[in-house]
């Protein structure tokens, strides 16, 4: 029996570069996202995330390289590529002439779906917009406008969904319901690509993460591996000084408060013993496991960009 052909990647990017004037927004980026993944794209402002998404969406044209959605090149086969993609843009934009239902209906029509009312009603329900269906877009709060943007991205049921900072300005309760809906879409087989500044969201939702810096991908791994690679503890000790031999572990100091990086709980025993033996009084001590935010900060602080994907995780384990 012949081996099954590998599935067509949901997103495939090869050698993608883009320059805006003096700024190299993307530099030779390679990336492959498998169908059904919940993929996170993280990085500071200006890292190139939105440029990457814009190229996938056909809003920006790459200087070099290729990008495809489910095997459809975003330039030469743009109709199929765009049909397969739903994008929630970062900017809170809307057309002030129309109501919420008209906005969704028009967006559906652009994709050739002129009788899509059942799905539009379902979207309105899941996005908690049913009561606002006939309200003009101008009358909506920022959070509601954001939810309409999500609805517009989903109105043609795209298999690949890109969410560029979708929860900015959305209150906590609505954010939870929005993520529950997106999770459901992911369970139903949709590929999700998410950029967010809320790293706890990315940690909770994404099964794989790429971190970008200065137009390059500097880390690319499963969320679990990223966290385990940077596993450890951060200990916050409030004392006049640290025991001899432990100052090298200090990452930061604010007055008498010392932040130390430990690799395991076993090391904590050693620290406590050293503090006792030198008679140093502890006013306060707290412990925290490594989270994605710490991983992110360490990678962003310590990494020089590299060209090859194989070297992406060569970051200082400080």
């Amino acid at each position, binding site marked *: 029996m012949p081996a099954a052909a590998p599935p067509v990647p949901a997103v495939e990017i090869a050698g993608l570069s883009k320059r805006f004037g003096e700024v190299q927004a993307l530099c030779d980026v390679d990336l492959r996202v498998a169908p059904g993944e919940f993929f996170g794209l993280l990085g500071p402002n200006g890292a190139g995330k939105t440029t990457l998404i814009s190229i996938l969406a056909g809003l920006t044209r790459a200087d070099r390289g290729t990008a495809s959605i489910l095997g459809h090149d975003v330039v030469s086969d743009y109709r199929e590529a*765009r049909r397969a993609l739903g994008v929630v843009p970062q900017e809170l934009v809307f057309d002030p002439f129309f109501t919420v239902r008209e906005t969704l209906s028009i967006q559906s029509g652009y*994709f050739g779906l002129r009788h899509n009312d059942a799905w539009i009603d379902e979207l309105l329900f899941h996005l908690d917009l049913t009561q606002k269906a006939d309200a003009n877009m101008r009358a909506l709060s920022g959070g509601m406008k954001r939810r309409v943007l999500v609805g517009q991205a989903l109105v043609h049921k795209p298999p690949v969904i890109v969410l560029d900072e979708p929860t900015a300005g959305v209150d906590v309760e609505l954010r939870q319901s929005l993520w529950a809906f997106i999770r459901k879409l992911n369970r139903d087989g949709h590929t999700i690509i998410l950029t967010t500044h809320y790293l706890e969201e990315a940690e909770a939702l994404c099964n794989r993460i790429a971190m970008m810096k200065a137009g390059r991908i500097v880390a690319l791994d499963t969320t679990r591996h990223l966290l385990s690679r940077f596993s450890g503890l951060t200990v916050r000790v409030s004392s006049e000084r640290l025991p001899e031999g432990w100052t090298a572990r200090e990452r930061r100091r604010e007055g008498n408060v010392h932040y130390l990086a430990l690799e395991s709980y076993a090391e904590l025993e050693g620290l406590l013993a050293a503090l006792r033996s030198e008679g140093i009084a502890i006013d306060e001590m707290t412990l925290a496991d490594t989270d994605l935010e710490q991983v992110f900060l360490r990678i962003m602080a310590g990494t020089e960009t590299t060209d090859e994907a194989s070297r992406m995780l060569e970051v200082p384990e400080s």
Partner: protein
Amino acid sequence: MRGVVGAGMLTLLQKELLRFWKVSFQTIAAPVLTALLYLLIFSHVLESRVSVFNGQVRYTDFLVPGLVMMSVLQNAFANASSSLIQSKITGNLVFVLLPPLSPLDMYAAYVLGAMVRGLVVGLGVFIVTLVLLPGPFHMAHPIVAIAFAVLGSAILGTLGVIAGIWADKFDELAAFQNFLIMPLTFLSGVFYSIHTLPPFWQALSHFNPFFYMIDGFRYGFFGLSDIDPGISLGLVAIAAIVLAAVALSMLARGYKLRH
């Protein structure tokens, strides 16, 4: 989930029509009123002083097709250009750029929307003048008039697309409108026959493409024109094709739309 081919263009056209229909006082009623004011003032002041087509046509009657065509042209331009610049500046053009709409889909929808608005306003001006002006009305060549109105609205709709894509801010669009479209319209023979002009200005008028649209349209009304309507129709058709090629090229390259 597959859509119907071509339906995207129809939806964009429908959106363009809804957009101006929702503010119809501003987009239809106001330009009709403006044209009527021109008609009342100019006809009152100049009726007894200006002779056109060697006195074969009353000045007020001469003015009507000029004003109708001017309304068609200006509103066709305004519709496409203001829709695009507003969408660009507010950022909601992204909703049109993300779907699988081809450059031809976008061009057809914006220009057809502009044509409908221009023709609706022109028809409004025409109907109101029929009601207001005394005497029976006979149109010599209605098909010719319709052909020039359709082509003229298509040309100005296309110019509106070009200007809307080119302009980065309202100020630039206003410059395009006030320093190019408006002078070309006013100096095209809306209010006078070019035979009443000195030879230099008469010759210069032949370089104004709007002159051919208005002169040909007026021929449809009276069977009289400053130049052969066949030549006018040919030149207007060539202008429509050349401008359509320019606009389509801009859309295909993503000029100022896809960076």
